[in-house]
C-alpha cells in the first residue's frame, strides 16, 4: 500500500495553537462555530483562516476535556445553533497556554533577533 498523507489541518494556524485561539475568542462571550471562525479571521486581520475540518474537531475535543460547554439556541435561520461557552477550567487552561505561548514566542524571537553580547564580537 502506498503511503498517503492522512488528513491534516490545512491551515496556516500552527498546530496546537487553535485550541488556545478558540479559548481566547470565547473569553469575550459565548459563540457558535461560524461566529468563532469569523472572529478568529477578523481579529487576525484576515490572516488566519480556520478550516472547518479543524474547527469542529477542536471544539468537540475541548468540550470533552470540559474546558468549554455547549448548548443549543434557537435561531431565526432555521437550524438551531450550538453555542459554546468557556468554563472555569477552560479559563485556567487558557492562562497556562498563553504563558506557554508567550515563553515560546519570546524564545523564538530571541533566536531570530539575537542580542549581540560584547564578549562574542
Amino acid at each position: 500500500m502506498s503511503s498517503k498523507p492522512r488528513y491534516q489541518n490545512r491551515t496556516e494556524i500552527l498546530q496546537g495553537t487553535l485550541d488556545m485561539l478558540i479559548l481566547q475568542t470565547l473569553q469575550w462571550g459565548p459563540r457558535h462555530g461560524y461566529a468563532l471562525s469569523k472572529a478568529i479571521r477578523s481579529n487576525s486581520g484576515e490572516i488566519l483562516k480556520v478550516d472547518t475540518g479543524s474547527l469542529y474537531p477542536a471544539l468537540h475535543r475541548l468540550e470533552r476535556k470540559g474546558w468549554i460547554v455547549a448548548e443549543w439556541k434557537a435561531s431565526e435561520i432555521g437550524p438551531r445553533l450550538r453555542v459554546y461557552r468557556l468554563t472555569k477550567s477552560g479559563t485556567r487552561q487558557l492562562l497556562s497556554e498563553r504563558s506557554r505561548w508567550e515563553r515560546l514566542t519570546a524564545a523564538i524571537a530571541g533566536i531570530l533577533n539575537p542580542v549581540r553580547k560584547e564578549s562574542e564580537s
Partner: protein
Amino acid sequence: MKFPLWRRAQRDKELVEEMQAHLALAEREATESGQTPKQAQASAHQEFGNVGLAAEVTRDTWGWNWLVELLQDARYGVRNMRRTPGFALVTVLTLALGIGANTAIFSVVDAVLFRALPYRDAGRLVWATNFASEPKQNLVFADEYAGWRTQNHVFENIAAYSPAAEYTLTGTGSPQRLRGAQVTASFLNVLGVMPQLGRNFLPEEDQPTGPKAALLSDAVWRSNFGADRNVVGRVVALDDTPYTVIGVLPRDFEFLDNSPAEFLVPLQLSDTSIQSANGKMRIMIRALSVVARLRPGATVVATTAELNAINERVLSGLNLKQLLGDAHAQVFLLHDHEIGDVRPALLVLLGAVGFVLLIACANVANLQLARAATREREVAIRGALGAGRWRLAKLLLTESSALALAGGVAGLLLAAWAIRLIRRFAPQKIPHLQVAHLNLRVLLFTLVVSLLTGILFGLAPVWAAFRVSLNNTLKDGGAQSGSGTGTRRAQKVLMVAEIALSFVLFIGAALLVKSFHQLTAIQPGFDPHGVLTAHVALPLEQYQTPVQQRTFFEELVQRLQALPGVASAAATATVPLRGDMQMISMIQVEGQPKINPYVANVPTARVNSVTPGYFSALRVPLIAGRLLDERDGADAPKSVVVNQAFVRRFFEKEDPIGKRFMAKFSPGPEAPPIWTIVGVIHDTKQRGLADDITPEVTASTSQWPRFMMTLVLRTSDSPVSLVSAVRQQVSALDKNIPVYAVQTMDDMFSAEVASQRFNAIALAGFAGFAVLLAAVGIYGVMAYAVSRRSHEMGVRIALGAGRGNVVRMILNQGFRLALIGVGLGLATSFALTRLMTGLLFGVKPSDPQTFVLVTAALLAVALAACWIPAHRATRVDPVIALRYE
C-alpha cells in the same frame, strides 16, 4: 465528557445540524453581501470544504471510535460472508468441528483435572499410605494409623476408612445389595462435610465395642426410605447386623477412591492389630486407607518424612522388617490420588484436539489466502482511498474473528452433543466425568479459543494484503492479476504444516489402535462369550457352617443346570478378570526347603474354590492330569488343580501331578491341610487382561466351601434372557438372599478394554478428521496453483508436452511438499509419542511398523489429493489458455 455510546446516533444528528447551521449562516452572509442565492450557496460550501470529512474527523474526537469501527467492520464482514456463502459455510463448519472438539475435551479435562474436589478447602487434603513394591501393595496397619493419629505434628485432623464394599440391606422391602464404607468418626470432619439431616458419627461410635450407627447417602435415602425425614433413629439390618440410622449425607457428597458409597458406618478399629506374645506374632491385617487434612504450611514432603519416622517408632521392637520388605510411607494430595492415572490420557487427548484445531486453522487460512487473491482489488482501492494498514488489518481480522465466533457458536452446539456422548461411552474409571458440562469456565475457554483462532487464521490474509502493491493491482485493471509469489509461498507453508500436524495425530492414533488390538488379542485362557455371571452372598447368621454353605451352592448349581438354555452352570469364589477379591496362601511344597514366613517374598499362590462344572462352563483347557469332579467330595483326599504359572514357579523340571503341598486357605488355629495336585489347567487372566499371571490353586467347593460365590452360566442363547430365571431359582431356595452384580462376561471384557478403546476411538476420530482436512488443504493449494498456471500449461501443451509430462510435473511439486511435511511430522512424532508411553500396551512409542505404515498412508493421501488438480491441468485447451493473454 466521554459521550455514551448509545447516544451516538443522536449526537450524529446534532453534528449534522451544527454544520448545516454553519453553512446557513455563511450563506446568509454571502447573500447580504450581494451574491445571488445560488452563488451564496456555492461560496458557502467552498469555504466550508468537505462536509463529510469534517464530520468524520469531528466524530473521531468522541471516543468509542474503536468500538464503532469494530461494529462497522463486523457488519461489513457479515455482508461479505453473505456474498460468498459457500466459503463462509465451509469455514464455519471446519472451525465448528475444531472448536467443538476442543470444547468437549476441555470440559472433560475441566471436570476431571481442574475442578476442585467437593470438600472444604480441598487443597489441604492428602491421602497417605505405606507402599511396598514386592509384592505391590498399599498397607497401613492399625498400629501405624494410631501412631500417625496421636504423634503427628502436620495434620489438623486425620481419618481412616476401608474401601467401599457390598452389604445386604434387609428390613426395607426386598433384600438389597448396597455399597457401604467403614470410616472413623473423624472422617467427615477431615473432609469438611456435614450431614444434611441428623448428625455426624460420635467419637465413641468408632471404638471396637461402640454402638452401630449408619449415615445414608442422599440417593439411598430417597430410593429406599422415600426421603422420609423421620428416618433418623430407625434401625436397619446390614448383613444381618442392626444399625441405627443417624443421618443423611448431603446430596453432592462424593466418597473417595472414585467409588460410590451408598452409606457410611463407623470403622470400629482397635489401635493394635499386632499382638506379640512369647515370641509368637499374630497380625490382624485390615486394608486401611488414610485421608488427612494438613495444617496450614505443612508440606507433602515433610509429612512423608514424619510418617516414616512414626512408623519406625511404632514398629520398633516388633521384628517385622523382613515381612514388610521395602514398605515406606507415601503421601499424595487427595486430588492427585483421586485422579489416578487418567491424567496422561486426558492431556494427550487435549493435545490432540489442539492439533486438530491448528490444522483447521491452517485450512481456513488457506481458504482465506485464496480469497485474498480475489480481493486484491478491493484492498488496493481501500488503500488508495486512504485506509491505513492498521485499519485494514483490523477490518480483515474483524472479519476472520466474526467467522471464528460463528464457528465457536456452532462448535458449542457440537460440544454439548459430544459431551453427552463422552459421558455415555467413556470408561467408568475416569473420575468425576459425570459432572462435565458447559459451565462458565468452559464457555470462557471456547470464547478465547475462538478469538485466538480468528486472529491466527486471519493473519494470513492480513499478511497477503500488506503485500498488495497499489500501483500494479490498480493498473492491471481487473484482469486476473498475478498474485504475489508471497501468497503462494504462504499457502505452501500452511500445506506443509497441515501435513506435519496430521501426520503426528495419525501416528498417535495408529499407536493407540495397535495397542487396543494387542490388548484384545490377548488370550484370556477361557472363552468369555455367552457367559452370564451373578454374585450370591449367604448371610453368615443363617449359613454358619461350611456344610450349610456347600449344600446351598451345590443345590443352586443343580437347579441352574436344569434350566432350559443353560449349557453348563457352576459357582466360583473368584471370576477371571475380576480377581480383586482373591485370597492368597503361602505354599510349602512337600520335599522342598522349609519357608520362613517372616521374610518378604514368601512363595504364595492365589487360591480359588469352584464347583466341578466351572472348567467346562468357562472352557478352561486341561493341560495335564484331570479336572476336579465328584471324586473330590467333602470326605475324599484333598485335591486341587493348579495353573501353568504354578508349575513354572514350584516344579521347574518335575511332573507336578501327584505332588503334595501344605497351604492354609482359611484363618483359624488348626494346622494347614495337605493338598494333592491332580491336574494342571491353562493359565487364565484373573486380574485383568494386562496383568501378569501368578501361580494359582483351585480347590473344589466340596472341600473348601465359601459363603460368597459367583455363579457362571454358559448359555446356549442370549445370556441376558436368563437373568430373571436365575433370580427365581435363588429366591426359591431362600427368598432373603439377593442376587447382584449380574453381568455377562462379554460386558466385563468390554469394560476391561474400555479405556484403551475410548482413547483409540477418540484419537482415531481426531486423526481421521485431521487427515481429511489436510487432504482438502492439499487439494485446495494444488488446484489453485494449477489454475494460476493454466496459461503456462497451455503453452507447454501447445509446444508438445504430453499429458504424462504435465501430470508428473504437478504431482512432483505436490509430492515434494508432502515429503517435507511428512519429514517434519516424523521428527515431531518421535519427540511427542514418548509422552504416550503410559497409554500404550504392547507397542513401543517408536514402533517402526506403525511409522512406516502411517508414512505410506499419508503420502498416498497427499498424492491422491494432488492427482485431481494434476489431471485437470492436462485438460487445459491451449487455444483458450493462449487467447486469454
